[in-house]
Structure formats: C-alpha cells, structure tokens
C-alpha cells in the first residue's frame, strides 16, 4: 500500500481540454509530506508518465482549495488541487 499511515491524500481535479487529454477528471494522490505545486506535478508525472506533455504546459493554471495558486504554493494532505487551461466562458 502506498497510502500507509504516513501518507496523506490530495484530491486532484482536471478541467477542459486537460481533463479530456488525461481522460481523467479527478485523481487521488498520496503524498508523504507537503509539496509545492511544482513538486506535486513531478510526483504525479512519475506515477503517470504519459501525462507529462499535458501537465508540463506553461499555460496551465493551478488552484489550491479553489484559490488560484503559483508554482511555489505548498500543498498538504486534505487539500484540493485543480489544474486547468485558461478559462473561456461567457
């Protein structure tokens, strides 16, 4: 089990064309310690190598607990982290 006592869950959400490319809307990621968005992305890619190109897109925006967040922002267990392309509503 990766999700041992010392691992916590982060809920990842994907939207728009990113969701379609990953064929994934929601993903539970176990982390052992708080990580920056940047580190979290690398960790995710190590688990899902085929997602690399889609996730390493400079246009992608991240939000932590529904607040827009920079690459240095820290994510801890229990957080909700969303990745999405620039918005196109209206």
């Amino acid at each position, binding site marked *: 089990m990766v999700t041992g006592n010392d691992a916590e869950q982060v809920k990842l959400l994907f*939207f728009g*064309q990113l969701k379609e490319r990953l064929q994934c809307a929601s993903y539970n990621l176990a982390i052992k310690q708080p990580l920056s968005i940047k580190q979290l992305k690398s960790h995710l890619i190590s688990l899902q190598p085929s997602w690399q190109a889609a996730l390493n897109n400079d246009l992608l925006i991240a939000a932590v607990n529904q607040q827009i967040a920079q690459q240095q922002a820290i994510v801890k267990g229990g957080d909700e982290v969303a990745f*999405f392309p620039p918005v196109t509503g*209206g």
Partner: protein
Amino acid sequence: MSIEITISHDDFDIAVLHDALQIGNVQQGAVVTFTGLVREFSHGDNVVALELEHYPQMTEQLLLSIAEQAQNRWQLGRISIYHRIGYLPLGEQIVFVGVSSKHRQSAFDGAQFIMDYLKTQATFWKKEHFSHSSQWVEFKASDVQAQQKWAAD
C-alpha cells in the same frame, strides 16, 4: 444592494431577470444587460452547439468576487449574473449579466467590467461542436486586453 449568481443547465428568462433588477428599485434609473448567445460562426466553420463546463463552487466564488468589485467601484445597485453549463445548441442563451445603477455610464461600465472579468477569470471552459468535429476554444488575447484596460484607469 443585492447580487444574484446562478450557474445552471436550465435556460434563463430575460423578463424574470430584468424584473428582478428593476422592480421596486426606484433608487436606480439605469439598467444595462448583456446576453451572450451561441452564434453560428467560428473560424470559418459552422458551429452547431457549444458545450460548457465549470469548476463548481470556485466559479460561484469568483463571480461573486467580480460582482462585488464592480459594485464597489461604481456604486451599483443590483447585479445579476446567470451562466449556463452543458450542451447548448445554436441560438441558445449562454450568459446574462445585468446591473442597475443611478447613472447610465456606471451601469454600462459595471456590466462591461463584469463581462470582461468573467471571460478571463471565471472557471468556465467552452468546447465548440461542428457538424463532424469538436474543439476546445482557445483563450483570446483580446479578452485579456479587454480585462486589463480596467486596471489602467
């Protein structure tokens, strides 16, 4: 001073939304509304429908924050934002933004500010369906410029 935000699969009724902005509201003499519709052309191809998705809860929070900024900046009276999601065929209504204000200039500015921020900040994503294909809409630099002009004032 009220703000109404709705995100829904259901269509909206302009008359109902408009009434809510003006009835019993004798302080504000000006109402400006914007309505966005699914239109036929995009990049030379015939759109048959749009598909809209959003980030639940985050979108509502963002729209509320945008409306509050507009209300404070122009002393608007009432604000109503209604945005549809889901599959919307040609001609369908997508979005409604309406504001009431004492004066027409602030009503126009407030409504336009909300639309410009909604377009660039609210967590909606739009996919265009053509007869035999579909594609996610790319963000437009012109929308970012439209939003940024409000910061320069």
